[in-house]
């Protein structure tokens, strides 16, 4: 649905803004997380077809009707994977943040740029 995908893109933009402008590592990760959610919204919205139902065969949806009455199951599957991956990335980013704070006592991204040039 266009509305949801636009919402998704707006969330991506907001997340990106956070990622690119915040100085605090945690806030950057928050931005990243928001961006991820936006992407998930976009993906799911692509699989949705107005008036259709979830692709689960049960009393409401017989196997024969599925092609004409079910939404696309693939984006859902993709999003599932993406969500888990998103969590994994977030967790790893956070552990890096903790480690950085432990070593350098700062969460400001400007203070951890000594590896330059």
């Amino acid at each position, binding site marked *: 649905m266009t509305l949801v995908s636009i919402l998704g*893109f707006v969330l991506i933009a907001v997340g990106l803004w956070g990622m690119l402008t915040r100085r605090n590592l945690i806030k950057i990760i928050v931005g990243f997380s928001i961006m991820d959610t936006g992407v998930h919204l976009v993906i799911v919205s692509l699989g949705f*077809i107005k008036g259709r139902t979830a692709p689960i065969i049960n009393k409401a949806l017989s196997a024969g009707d599925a092609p004409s009455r*079910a939404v*696309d*199951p693939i984006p*859902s599957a993709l999003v599932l*994977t993406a969500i888990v991956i998103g*969590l994994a990335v977030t*967790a790893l980013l956070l552990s*890096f943040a903790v480690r950085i704070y432990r070593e350098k006592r700062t969460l400001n991204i400007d203070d951890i740029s000594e590896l330059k040039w």
Partner: protein
Amino acid sequence: MIKRSLIVLLLIVTAYILYPLAILPPQDNLGNAAAAITADGVTDLGAANLVTSVIVSYRGLDTLGEVTVLFLATAGVGFVLFRKRKSDTADTEVPRQASEFLQTGAIFLWPYIVILGIFIIFHGHISPGGGFQGGVILAMAFLLIMLAFPGKALPEGFRHAMESLSGLAYVGIAIAGLAIAGDFLNTRILPTGQTGSLISAGAIPLISVAIGIKVGAEMVTILAHLRKEEA
């Protein structure tokens, strides 16, 4: 300030780039892949939940990869936070007792949560849910315990065994598919059974279980790693 304006500019440009995508009209028919799956999914695999079919079977390699990513996150988090110091054993110490309310609630709630998780895992092929969702719910249960009783979390060895063996089982089932049906990750090595019943859909439930245990164990381990005390 220049940087900020540059970023605003870049965001506008990015929006401009993405614009042709955002305005795509909603589709009213399924694409090739989806049409094929919705048409033949049930006869192919016998799973009622087509999303689970896609996750576990049609695109099973994605899921194996996804489990790997989670495993990597666990290993990575542990590795990144690793410190050769005594404080690494901090999670066995009891720095601060949680409130009694939390403790009581936890003891009361966690069997139900565990059962819910197991249910979701086992019914993944017939109703919404599956290994991931169930695994996460299992992890939640143990998180509750962990919060309520610091130091009484799942024993590390058990967690590791679960992580490893469930992963191994997943790979094992995949290889069994190769050995029996000729295709890696082929779930039709077991009879597909009656669609909609618990014992159906070939090896999909087995894989769901492996995924569930794996995801649960990984999540708990991530949380345990993050929960370790800094000294």
